[in-house]
């Protein structure tokens, strides 16, 4: 029996029996929804919820990696404590604040550059030209390369003695002697930003391109007929139209940038000039074995990101209601 046959059979006038049948149906569907969600929620609770709760708890203890079973509750001492008139704890730890500023600086600069460059690449890819498919494939390559591999590839190219970048720059005469890009405090953060921009601009470009390709073509026809300058068209038509997609892409990238770990860890290891919040927290946890203190740092990072996410979601809601007016 085909589904359509069944539909025909069941289109009898609604009787009381049919109505109870429908509410039975709704409740059985709700039961099914619950059963379908249960396994996923259980797994998510075990692998994400529980460890998160434990991390927050460990942040209030003096836990040490050597033996996690002997931990004592010490209140907020990992965050702030005063001994003999001297303040200790994360909130007064200059290294932690250094990591916070590094992370914010890195996130703002790299996400801005990625957005601007991604927009440029998307505008190019949105045009019709010979070999566009090939260019699009080429742009995807950096995105496809694992972060660790791209960090290693770039540390090789940026190598102070054997690197091709120093060789090229010296060849053109831009620098007189080799620069230790990843070790020099003046250039280390820029090296990290450059590699991140190289790796992530394709993601931005593709998201923006997807937005561009949904725009109606007739607006552009009209602008062309009216002789409006393309730059003006971009700022007055294109940008406002793709703004929603752009905002979401930027938020996703920013949240990703705030938790950066692998690129910095591989490119500049535990150097303080580039240390991000994630690198700081892991160094405390694993290298110094201070599980309590490191958990407190991880909790703060979580709070920062949660705060930003909530603010964005609220801002997003406000925008939505404005749009619907």
């Amino acid at each position, binding site marked *: 029996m085909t589904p359509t046959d069944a539909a025909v059979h069941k289109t009898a006038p609604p009787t009381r029996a049919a109505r109870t049948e429908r509410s039975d149906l709704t409740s059985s569907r*709700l039961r099914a929804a619950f059963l379908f969600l249960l396994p996923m929620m259980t797994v998510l609770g075990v692998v*994400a919820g529980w460890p998160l709760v434990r*991390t927050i708890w460990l942040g209030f203890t003096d836990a040490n990696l050597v033996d996690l079973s002997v931990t004592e509750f010490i209140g907020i001492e990992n965050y702030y404590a005063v001994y003999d008139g001297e303040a200790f704890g994360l909130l007064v730890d200059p290294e932690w604040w250094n990591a916070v500023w590094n992370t914010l600086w890195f996130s703002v600069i790299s996400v801005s550059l990625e957005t601007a460059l991604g927009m440029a690449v998307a505008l*190019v890819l949105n045009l019709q030209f010979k070999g566009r498919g090939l260019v699009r*494939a080429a742009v995807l390559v950096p995105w496809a390369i694992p972060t660790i591999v791209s960090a290693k590839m770039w540390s090789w190219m940026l190598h102070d003695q054997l690197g091709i970048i120093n060789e090229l720059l010296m060849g053109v005469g831009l620098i007189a002697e080799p620069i230790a890009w990843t070790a020099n405090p003046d250039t280390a953060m820029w090296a990290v930003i450059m590699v991140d921009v190289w790796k992530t601009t394709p993601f931005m470009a593709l998201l923006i391109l997807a937005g561009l390709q949904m725009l109606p073509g007739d607006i552009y026809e009209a602008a062309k007929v009216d002789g409006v300058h393309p730059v003006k068209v971009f700022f007055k038509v294109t940008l406002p139209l793709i703004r929603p997609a752009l905002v*979401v892409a930027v938020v996703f990238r920013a949240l990703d940038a705030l938790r950066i770990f692998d690129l910095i860890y591989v490119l500049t290891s535990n150097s303080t000039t580039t240390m991000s919040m994630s690198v700081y927290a892991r160094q405390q946890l694993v290298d110094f074995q201070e599980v309590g203190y490191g958990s407190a740092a991880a909790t703060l990072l979580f709070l920062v990101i949660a705060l930003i996410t909530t603010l964005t979601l609220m801002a997003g809601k406000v925008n939505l209601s404005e749009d619907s007016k």
Partner: protein
Amino acid sequence: MKLSLKSLLFYGLVLAIVVVSVFPFYYAIITSFRSGTELFNPSALPGVIDFGNYLSIFKEQPFGTNIFNSIFVATVVVIISLVLAVTAAYALARIPFRGRGLLLMTILSVSMFPQVAILSGMFELIKAMGIYNSLPGLIVPNMVLTLPFTVWVLTTFMKELPKELEEAAIVDGASSLVIVRRVFLPLMWPALVTTGLLAFISAWNEFLFALTFTLSNEVRTVPVAIALMSGASKYELPWGNIMAASVVVTVPIVVLVLIFQRKIVAGLTAGAVKG
């Protein structure tokens, strides 16, 4: 004249985009064929082709095991995630219930939260389960990366399918499980392949958990093995070997991405733009 100058500039820009995108990987391939003193030659042109580095990573290091570990962990993680996510996504996309929006938001925020935030709790959990420094000990934390993502993307895909699809089946008295299996699964294959591939890539690239929850080289995954490759002396990194290993693990991913490029872009936009 003006037009040709314009198009010359345009193609210059296009060329610059292509060169910047592809050159680092090209240079890694070139380097991987150089060993010994050849590495002191920073030329960007291919010279001697020497497979020494490739032989060395498989002979002197357990790189074959590392590759197996990565494939094994990523495959298991993807399969578990997809199985759990298909039914969950059906409930989230097709059955209206109270708190659905909140649940979706929670799932999305799990995929955005910093992995470091669960590092110590996860360490405790893995120790308690007795799977520290083993492959199951990598599968458990990787679920955090792939499960919320697959649920989110599959929900987006399922929402777009027409409502008439299941209505007929419901009237026919089919149970929800049958609807998922008979009506949705056959239509979901392309979405499952794309989502699975993206989840596979993120598990394949995962570094923080794999670095923290393993001790011996035999249980390491590929990114950790590459990051920790060291040479005879502490100060001399074996760049030839590192580049050879990088090429080995990157070529399959690049090929997959290029084959599935249209689908991947669709999957990424479902994961992000519609969020």
